[in-house]
């Protein structure tokens, strides 16, 4: 089966070369048969990659330890779901998995557009298959996933215990879907630049792809945070690690793009800027992969230093040179009808929103690469860690939260003072009252209160928008309240789904502020039967239970939780020992509520004396981060709902622009 996998990858490589050559030749010579041959090659590459994935999964599931990858990332005692997750647990498998997702997307794109965009599609094919060719080249020549050992070990080394967590089964695929999804808008943008078809067509065609990529990047980042929170056991969810930063940067530029593209659609502005954002987002996904696999920046997430770094760097430079070269070539044709009536307008608010988002991406990039720069310039190794990012990105994040409230409410073109007063007075009062409320509840940190107040302000602007629209429908069309609300959203899902996404973002900000500025933490060593106090909780350590199977040996402390003398729960923080990897891990016990999370870590346990050391955190409002994530998912689903108005706009965008004098002749 592994031979079949190797053969499939080699064949996929050759077919990818054919797909690129046939598409470009067909487009150049205007020969549909060649173009069609290129499309068929795409489907064939997809089939080959599917065969390779099945072959590797087969090797993993059948425990074929003669395959180096299987021996390195699985064991005979590894549960089935983690054995499947081992497909993306190591370098070679993750590259294959990346290629697989890319080919799934490429196939869907070609099926969707088999009778559309005939001018653009050959170049879309060539772009997507060039990306696929790069990854297939790595798999065929540098990191072959089916490489065999000269001997067959009795047992595999097992998957890293930190990866043996259910969030890890969904977090990497989600991030990969986001990363790879950015390839599709990039391919269409490049095709538009090559063909000179620079109308809104490519933007409207790829809107859902851009949203899908953004959606999975959002979910991937949140799931990564959730995984860190549950597995790493340090009481937090985001450590500004270089690889975390690498996943955040394309999310930021993609968010900027999703906003600025509205200005292009509404006002025919910012065509060049949107191209830049699409190119940057894709380039940042490759940059992230470069960071993870090059070893140039130390990170807990990094794969082993593999020597792939120079190849990724070369590909990244190739992408940037080709993309910006084409953009420069087409600059004269990308002149927009840029017009700004006033700085007090939605256009201006969106411009500043883009500035802050791209500024955040730049600050994150800068902090991530600065250690390399320092070493080059001064020859001194330095660390750029959480204090830097919190100080630099923190204020920018607060500014972004403020603009989240301003952007959607302020009028297009020019807002009068009267409309500003009317739109913002009540939200400002709400924001202020929110701050006072949180202060009264004991949240007495300046930075945190600013965020809570802004969150109140933004939520009030969104609620006011929903109310205003619903009331207008009730007044004009005499609809009932629920019907008016439902019709309001279904008539313009993009706009109101966007507001729901904003609610999700605000809830995430509330969770971050609560858990960052008002956290309580304590570390202490106690005897069996002893009680201790953390915040409003009294914890009673009663005993330790030991269990063991072929895979894991575990010791779980039994901790009763009391509030005001009433027992409210029993927690089981655990220490595990993974036998194959010979590695201890902590399994955190979390008691989440809307008010706060009680987070208990069993640090160490001494069996003879039964002394246990606990780290306990009380993380206020942290659950709102995950709730915000769910709201964000809901909002994104609404924005992607079918929209008749959007379909009409797409048809209009596809129609050629009328030539001068045409109207007169008619």
């Amino acid at each position, binding site marked *: 089966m592994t031979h079949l996998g190797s053969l499939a990858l080699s064949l996929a490589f050759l077919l990818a070369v054919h797909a690129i050559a046939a598409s470009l030749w067909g487009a150049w010579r205007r020969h549909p048969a060649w173009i069609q041959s290129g499309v068929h090659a795409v489907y064939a590459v997809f089939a080959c990659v599917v065969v390779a994935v099945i072959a590797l999964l087969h090797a993993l599931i059948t425990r074929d330890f003669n395959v180096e990858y299987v021996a390195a990332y699985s064991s005979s005692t590894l549960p089935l779901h983690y054995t499947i997750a081992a497909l993306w647990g190591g370098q070679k498998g993750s590259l294959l998995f990346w290629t697989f997702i890319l080919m799934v997307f490429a196939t869907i794109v070609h099926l969707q557009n088999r009778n559309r965009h005939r001018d653009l599609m050959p170049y879309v094919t060539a772009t997507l298959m060039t990306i696929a060719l790069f990854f297939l080249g790595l798999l065929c020549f540098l990191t072959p996933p089916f490489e065999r050992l000269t001997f067959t070990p009795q047992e595999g080394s097992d998957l890293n215990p930190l990866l043996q967590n259910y969030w890890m089964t969904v977090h990497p695929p989600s991030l990969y879907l986001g990363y790879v999804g950015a390839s599709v808008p990039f391919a269409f943008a490049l095709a538009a630049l090559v063909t000179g078809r620079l109308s809104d067509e490519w933007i409207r065609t790829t809107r859902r792809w851009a949203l899908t990529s953004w959606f999975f990047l959002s979910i991937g980042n949140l799931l990564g945070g959730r995984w860190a929170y549950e597995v790493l056991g340090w009481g937090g969810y985001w450590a500004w690690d270089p690889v975390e930063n690498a996943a955040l940067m394309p999310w930021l530029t993609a968010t900027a793009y999703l906003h600025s593209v509205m200005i292009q659609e509404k006002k025919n502005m910012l065509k060049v800027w949107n191209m830049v954002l699409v190119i940057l987002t894709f380039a940042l996904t490759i940059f992230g992969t470069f960071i993870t696999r090059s070893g140039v920046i130390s990170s807990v997430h990094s794969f082993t230093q593999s020597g792939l770094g120079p190849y990724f760097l070369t590909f990244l430079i190739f992408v940037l040179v080709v993309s910006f070269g084409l953009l420069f070539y087409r600059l004269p044709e990308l002149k927009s009808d840029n017009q*700004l009536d006033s700085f007090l307008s939605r256009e201006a608010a969106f411009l500043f929103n883009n500035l802050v988002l791209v500024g955040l991406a730049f600050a994150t990039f800068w902090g991530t690469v600065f250690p390399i720069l320092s070493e080059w310039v001064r020859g001194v190794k330095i660390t750029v860690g959480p204090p830097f990012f919190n100080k630099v990105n923190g204020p920018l994040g607060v500014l972004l939260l403020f603009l989240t409230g301003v952007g959607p409410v302020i009028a297009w073109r020019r807002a009068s003072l009267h409309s500003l007063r009317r739109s913002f007075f009540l939200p400002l009062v709400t924001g202020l009252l929110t701050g006072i409320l949180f202060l009264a509840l004991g949240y007495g940190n300046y930075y945190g209160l600013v965020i809570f107040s802004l969150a109140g302000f933004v939520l009030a602007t969104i609620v006011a928008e929903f109310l205003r629209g619903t009331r207008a429908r009730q007044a004009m069309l005499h609809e009932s309240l629920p019907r008016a609300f439902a019709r309001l959203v279904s008539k313009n899902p993009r706009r109101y789904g966007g507001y729901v996404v904003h609610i999700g973002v605000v809830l995430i900000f509330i969770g971050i502020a609560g858990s960052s500025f008002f956290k309580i933490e304590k570390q202490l060593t106690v005897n069996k039967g002893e009680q201790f106090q953390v915040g409003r909780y009294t914890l009673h350590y009663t005993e330790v239970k030991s269990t063991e199977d072929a895979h894991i040996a575990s010791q779980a402390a039994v901790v009763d939780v009391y509030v005001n003398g009433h027992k409210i729960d029993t927690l089981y923080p655990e220490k595990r020992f993974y036998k194959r990897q010979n590695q201890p891990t902590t399994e955190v016990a979390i008691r989440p509520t809307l008010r706060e999370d009680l987070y208990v870590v069993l640090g160490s346990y001494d069996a003879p004396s039964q002394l246990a050391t606990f780290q306990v955190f009380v993380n206020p409002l942290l659950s709102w981060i995950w709730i915000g994530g769910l709201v964000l998912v809901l909002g994104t689903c609404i924005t992607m709902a079918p929209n008749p108005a959007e379909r009409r706009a797409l048809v209009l965008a596809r129609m050629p622009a009328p030539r001068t004098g045409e109207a007169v002749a008619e």
Partner: protein
Amino acid sequence: MQSRILLLAVLLCVSVAAAAPVLTTQEMEEALTCQCGCGLTVHSCNHLQCGFAIPAKQEIARAVSEGKTREEILASFVARYGEKVLSAPTVSGFNLVAWITPFLAIVGGAVFISIVGLRWARRQPQAAAPPPVSSETARYRHRLQQDLESFDV
């Protein structure tokens, strides 16, 4: 009414600022990066047998209780482990570039947007003098403007 709200906001800010906490061992622990390879700060490293974080935390607690300043404590760690032990670049010399560049980029971007925005504003076609309108037309126009602002269509 609005001025009262503003005053309330100012009072809120002042009262909260007055409650700001003082320097703690936690801050010192967060200023140092653990050298065990976890990638976290000394404060966040939860490897309870950690060969770096545990002695570092003890040393920090001792130094703070002895009344040493933040700079003295950091300098002693830098002398032994180099600058990489600090969790953020120092605010001096070449490291200033790390701190200033993001804000310079943002300010530069804001200036650029302002200049370009002003240029775009000048681009607007000069409308011909509007024909005289009746008071009724003006009233409807005003109403239309208000409705457009309300419903944002």
